[in-house]
């Protein structure tokens, strides 16, 4: 196998995995706090259009990413108010978020179809990125790729090593106990939901300003749902979600390179791979129902009301 082929392949894995890393790690925090937000797809697509629109009109990469994150936060706020304050069903509200997000993004994106944007600049670290093979693979990415790794490390550290992480987990495991010793379940959950929104928004932003970079209606193509599956696959652990995302990046590669290598399969069947792989992974991980139940936050999906 020649190296010429290997490097672009590895680079594609990284770009395919990065949006999933952001979305999945954000959702880990949300679910650790006991909230099941099925609206990741909606938050990602809103982040994608907000970032793309900002990139096209201002030309600023930083503003574009910030807009993606901000739009994710805003739409997550709707979810938070509905589920945390108004006690709405989390499954239904998450679905509403996805339907609404897809519609709103298409409405906003209507006038951006066909526009282009230079794409996110690669950080070339002089010297390091010139090393054969390792250079481009490790040091030739855009800033968001590194930010995604850093955010996984930070989330993992905060969740397991800090007081904030302890509070988040306490609220997710037993909200009544956390409430009874004086912590605000609603505030902690809102914080987690908004963080998840920002992360999903950045994940979406990565798609529209770095991965493609252009705006296509429905461009998230189920990645939000795959991110949700990754959280289950990762047993709610940030680093495992990270590796899971790279595993899926690898599957995307098979899809892109199988045809180049002369495999006689229709494009449609190759495009099915990530979805079928998601199902297989879920089956493998959920088979042991006792363990799956131990891993999941005990209050996941349950609403909390102080008087009730």
């Amino acid at each position, binding site marked *: 196998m020649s190296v010429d082929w290997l490097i672009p392949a590895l680079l594609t894995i990284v770009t395919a995995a990065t949006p999933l890393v952001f979305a999945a790690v954000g959702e880990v925090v949300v679910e650790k706090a006991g909230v099941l937000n099925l609206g990741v797809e909606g938050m990602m697509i809103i982040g994608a259009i907000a970032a793309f629109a900002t990139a096209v009109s201002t030309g600023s990469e930083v503003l574009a990413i910030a807009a993606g994150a901000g739009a994710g936060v805003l739409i997550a706020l*709707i979810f938070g108010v509905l589920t945390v304050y*108004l006690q709405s069903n989390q499954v239904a509200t998450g679905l509403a978020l996805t339907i609404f997000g897809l519609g709103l993004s*298409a409405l906003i994106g209507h006038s951006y179809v066909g526009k282009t944007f230079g794409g996110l600049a690669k950080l070339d670290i002089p010297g390091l990125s010139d090393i054969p093979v390792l250079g481009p693979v490790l040091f030739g990415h855009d800033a968001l790729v590194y930010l995604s790794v850093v955010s996984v490390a930070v989330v993992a550290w905060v969740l397991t090593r800090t007081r904030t992480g302890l509070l988040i987990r306490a609220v997710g495991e037993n909200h009544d106990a956390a409430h009874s010793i004086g912590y605000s379940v609603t505030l902690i959950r809102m914080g987690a939901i908004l963080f998840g929104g920002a992360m999903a928004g950045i994940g979406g932003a990565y798609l529209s300003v770095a991965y493609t970079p252009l705006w296509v209606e429905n461009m998230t193509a189920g990645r939000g749902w795959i991110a949700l599956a990754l959280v289950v696959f990762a047993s709610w652990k940030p680093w495992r979600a990270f590796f899971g995302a790279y595993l899926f990046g690898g599957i995307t590669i098979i899809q892109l390179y199988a045809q180049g290598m002369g495999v006689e399969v229709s494009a*449609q069947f190759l495009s099915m791979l990530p979805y079928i792989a998601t*199902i297989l992974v879920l089956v493998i991980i959920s088979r042991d129902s006792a363990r799956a139940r131990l891993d999941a936050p005990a209050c996941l999906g349950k609403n909390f009301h102080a008087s009730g």
Partner: protein
Amino acid sequence: MLPRLEQRPEASRSMVYVSPLIAVVFTVLTAMVMFALLGVDPVRAIETFFIEPVSSLDGLSELLVKATPLVLIGVGLSLGFQANVWNIGAEGQLVIGALAGGGLALAFFDQQSVFLVPAMLACGVLGGMVWAAIPAFLKTRYNTNEILTSLMLTYVGLLVLSYLVHGPWKDPQGMNFPESRLFHDSALLPVLIEGTRLNIGALIALFVVVLGWILISRHIIGFQIKVIGMAPMAASFAGFKEKRLIWLTLLISGGCAGLAGVIELSGAIGQIVPSISPGYGFTAIIVAFLGRLHPVGVLFAGLLMALTYLGGDSAQITMNLPNAVTGVFQGMLLFFLLASDVLIKYRVRFGAPKINVETAE
């Protein structure tokens, strides 16, 4: 003074019915603000959206054509949702059902037969059931979350459709367009009103509403579905077989979606095209909730949601608004509905909390 939610001693029955109305009113008001922001006269936009499409016979029949799949799928989904079985993949089941029925029509494209349409409908139901059986099997056997599996299968189903219309099922005389042959007359559903697209599919949907109502309100299975949704522990003590109900609700909802797909194909479209449904499978989720998970409610909710599709089309044609307005409308409606549903279990109070006499008793 901040408003505060106080739990009602008992869920309010009247709020169950008032809440959808509140949601519709708020959606329309918000939509008017949104139109004003888009620089469109709000009153004119609402008129274009909700009144113009249904002010002709043709419009009314289109309303029923669009409501048919929504009601069919909505009835099926609402059964599952009541049992906490979340089939989110109705769109995929619709597509596979349509392909099963449409495949039959293509196989017999040169033969006249009165049995073709019934056979196609049966194939549609079976196709949808097969696609829904996968999440049912995985959930009951491997404890796999049906939300994610059914949704992933939707993407797979859409790709199967894309493969077939681009490959083996492409019309040989179709100038390479990704479309199948036009169906033969005997593969088309009989039209109810001459000159419109209204077909017997609407009557089938009505029949399914009645069946759904009998099942949920008058049959032991409906009772078990409701108990398992509200009190899973009680259901297991009573000896209700949870796995059987998971299978049943998924098969029924998948079958309904498949039926909707084949009706759409042989009633409204007449050939297999790359995009069979404008997201009916997802919109039906909203229809199910808006209809209070009750077959009769679903009927009305389906009509309302069908109107948002027509409104989107008419706003696009006459006011040059993007079609995506429909999706925004639908999402907003579900948000407002879920928000006003809080009033079923809670009431809004102002002022400091007092000891609740009703619950203390």
